[in-house]
């Protein structure tokens, strides 16, 4: 309990005065208020705790006698401290507080808490919706004492997957060999170092129905029995038939469902009651021996693409896409990384170059991979990091003469060229048009000295191709310089640190990331069906390094004012695609 100090008292008095003006009956004990709040159909009692740092930190509100309220969204409970339940009325980590007016801070917070309670108590539909939104948190209240379980298994819709349960000192892992984690991932069955001692068995049962959460005082076994009655009989019979007798001491059931596009996992750990340790029992999916099992709730941590990919802002719809990336340099490596975070399922990466010392400050590969082929090392690095991607690496050198037979281009959903070699890219553009490849292609590159970068998306069966971006705007003829460029043609752009053979186009890792972001934005737009014509995205840097070198900028650079703005690339005068 906080002492009432001379410095603290003013805030407490202010709050009390406020509550009086509002007509709220209340009592004060130290820094805590108990406030009676009339809602529409009942009066509730709320405990308000004013923290030491108030008004720089918001007060906490607890609902007294929460357990009598049943299933209530946004109000927690602790079985160990059932009297007071935290009211989640805002995300306290994401607030800007009017600390100069403590009364306003308290009144806004109290109003918010009351509104939260009132909505959930008086509107059962909204309450249910909200409960589902915070499903995992609510289930977590039941899981106070059990270890969370990593679940390495892919749910099969309206079916089940058999699980072995492994344990070490830190965690439990429910695993099936049927999962979508690539074998090189640190989270794969192989690399999780699952010991050979199986601590239990279980099932991952995937349902296509809504699974209502239990209320705080509900008996979990009674609740489970109710759910058992709702699980399709054919499924239960299938499970019971396959596992009609079990000697496992512990049994786990993980229920999985998808509600409004969101996956939910509920874990139940069944343990034989002491008096039934040695006999054979039917599994807890059968009602026959259910009274011989005790049950506790378990929080599940699924290693599943439908949970982990959306959690990072990606999309599982990319899981069935196969993208080919030619070029594993600075930009290519960033593009590959970002695509993996977006949830890409399959990649083919092509590069015949090895990682050199000069690359390490721009490349995503660490110096541990020095001397190795970039394509092979990126495969290893990305697969180990991202569990749901599978990568094929090719150490192939693409030339103008072998483009048509080095890869089966039609196998891909998208092809990305990030080689910095405009000759070979133009050759591919010609080949693609001649062969009428029904595959979208992205070309991306950086300009030197932080001036900018460009990414071009060309769609099949639509006008607009890479050659359109090489049409000189003044002559309307096909040239050797891109019309997207920010630096005027014909200038000396290469940096040299060691003379001939050591010159290079100078750009930073930040520039590479910036351009790779443009590539990802194009992919997102394409896969989300937001693009109907071939387009380009450019980003523009401040150009001061180029300025220092006396380089001249194009008109496009001077006029350009919007990164991420789509530019139509189709040029009527391009004879390649018209």
């Amino acid at each position: 309990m906080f002492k009432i100090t001379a410095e603290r008292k003013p805030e407490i008095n202010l709050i009390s005065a406020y509550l009086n003006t509002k007509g709220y009956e209340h009592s004060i004990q130290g820094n805590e208020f108990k406030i009676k709040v009339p809602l529409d159909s009942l009066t509730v009692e709320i405990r308000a705790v004013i923290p030491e740092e108030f008004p720089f930190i918001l007060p906490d509100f607890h609902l007294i006698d929460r357990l009598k309220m049943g299933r209530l969204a946004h109000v927690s409970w602790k079985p160990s401290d059932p009297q007071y339940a935290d009211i989640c009325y805002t995300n306290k980590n994401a607030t800007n507080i009017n600390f100069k007016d403590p009364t306003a801070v308290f009144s806004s917070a109290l109003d918010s808490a009351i509104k939260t309670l009132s909505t959930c108590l008086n509107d059962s539909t909204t309450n249910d919706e909200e409960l589902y939104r915070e499903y995992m948190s609510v289930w977590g209240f039941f899981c106070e004492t059990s270890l969370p379980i990593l679940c390495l298994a892919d749910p099969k819709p309206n079916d089940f997957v058999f699980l072995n349960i492994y344990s070490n000192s830190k965690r439990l892992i429910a695993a099936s060999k049927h999962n979508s984690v690539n074998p090189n991932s640190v989270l794969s069955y192989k690399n999780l170092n699952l010991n050979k001692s199986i601590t239990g068995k279980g099932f991952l049962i995937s349902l296509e129905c809504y699974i209502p959460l239990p209320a705080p005082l509900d008996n979990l076994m009674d609740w489970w029995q109710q759910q058992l009655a709702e699980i399709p009989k054919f499924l239960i019979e299938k499970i019971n038939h396959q596992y009609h007798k079990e000697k496992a001491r512990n049994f786990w059931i993980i229920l999985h469902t998808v509600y409004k596009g969101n996956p939910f996992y509920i874990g139940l750990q069944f343990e034989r009651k002491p008096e039934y340790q040695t006999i054979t029992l039917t599994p807890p999916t059968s009602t026959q021996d259910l009274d011989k099992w005790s049950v506790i709730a378990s929080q599940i941590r699924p290693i599943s693409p439908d949970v982990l990919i959306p959690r990072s802002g990606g999309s599982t719809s990319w899981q069935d896409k196969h993208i080919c990336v030619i070029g594993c340099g600075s930009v290519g490596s960033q593009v590959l990384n970002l695509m993996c975070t977006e949830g890409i399922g399959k990649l083919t990466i092509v590069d015949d170059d090895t990682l050199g010392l000069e690359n390490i400050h721009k490349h995503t590969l660490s110096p541990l991979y020095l001397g190795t082929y970039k394509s092979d090392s990126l495969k290893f690095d990305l697969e180990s990091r991202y569990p749901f991607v599978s990568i094929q690496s090719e150490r192939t050198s693409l030339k103008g003469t072998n483009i048509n037979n080095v890869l089966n281009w039609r196998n891909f959903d998208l092809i990305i060229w990030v080689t910095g070699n405009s000759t070979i890219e133009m050759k591919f553009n010609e080949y693609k048009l001649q062969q009428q490849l029904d595959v979208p292609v992205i070309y991306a590159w950086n300009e030197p000295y932080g001036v900018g970068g460009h990414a071009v998306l060309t769609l099949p069966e639509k006008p607009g191709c890479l050659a359109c971006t090489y049409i000189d705007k003044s002559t309307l003829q096909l040239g050797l310089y891109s019309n997207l460029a920010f630096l005027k043609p014909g200038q000396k752009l290469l940096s040299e640190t060691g003379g001939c053979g050591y010159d290079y186009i100078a750009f930073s890792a930040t520039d590479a990331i910036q351009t790779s972001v443009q590539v990802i934005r194009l992919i997102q737009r394409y896969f989300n069906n937001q693009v109907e014509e071939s387009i380009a995205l450019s980003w523009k840097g401040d150009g001061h390094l180029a300025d220092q070198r006396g380089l001249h900028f194009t008109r496009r650079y001077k006029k350009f004012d919007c990164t991420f703005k789509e530019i139509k690339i189709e040029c009527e005068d391009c004879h390649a695609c018209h």
Partner: protein
Amino acid sequence: MASLQSYYNKFFQNIRLEYQSDAYKQVKDKDDSISPKITQAFKEAGYVVESTLKLGSMAVGTSIKPINGGDYDLDKGFVITYDSSPENPIAPKEIIHEVLGNHGFTNHKIKTPCVTADYASINMHIDYTVFRPQEYGGIHELAVGKKHAKEPKWDENDPTGLINWINDNQYHKAWWHSLDEEEVAQFKTIVRYLKRWRDVNFCDSDRKRIYSIALTIMAKEQFAPSIDEEGNRNDHEALQNTIKNILEHNYFVNIGNDKFEISINLPVAPRREVFQQHKSVGTVFKERLEKMHNKLIEVNKTDNLEEKTEILNKLFGEDFPIHSETKESANSLHKFSGPGFVQDHGGA
């Protein structure tokens, strides 16, 4: 399919004339042989040539090839020092006149502002002018007067100022917007189009009275650029809007009976009226401008490129190509224009 702009580009290539163009080489060579002789003759007469000035359309990049056997023009100024200049401005002009006559030029005359001559075998027409700086600096003075002029004089004149005015990125209708390099280039292209249009659409006598400098000043003052942020030029739109602005401006004064006089002043010293004795050409000039404007609008009403280019071909003459549908091989990428290779501008 090609764009209308590509046909404007071809038209431009067909009519443009630069100092280094092959078609101009002989004119340039002739000037290169004559100018030193004039400078030498000046020297012998005690006039010190401190500089020469490229004048006219060659100085500002708005020259076009002549049609129908017309002459290639060369406009040049000789600037003699103030201290060496004679009181009588006709004197140096007489020296030029004599040099030209001794070197195969015909029809050489001392006119009020300059000395003119033709060199028939290469369709060349020369205008040589004599300038001197003012005694205390500032703009130049032009030697004004014919051979037996009653009041020859050294008159204030600012040839450099005029060139700068034309080349400047302001002094146009949207004065708040500075033209960039590409827009200035488009303005000059529009001038070239207007000059060719004049050459094609007027009889000889009217054509001579619709001075190129007038077209240039009007186009500059009323210029409406049309280049988007991606550098896509639309000369058709720029031309149409510029002519619209010209027609809406008060260059043409209604003097009754559907007659118009034209009035344009030089924007720099001596700020004289450009048309002076030929204001009456305003009637036919305005009428033809309106006709051109209507034709340009007509072009917009059709989507057919062949029809568009046919209208423009009638407006600008045979140097404006007409589109015809030809099938290009779907298997061939159009060739690159430019050298065999260039340094790559991008990295990854």
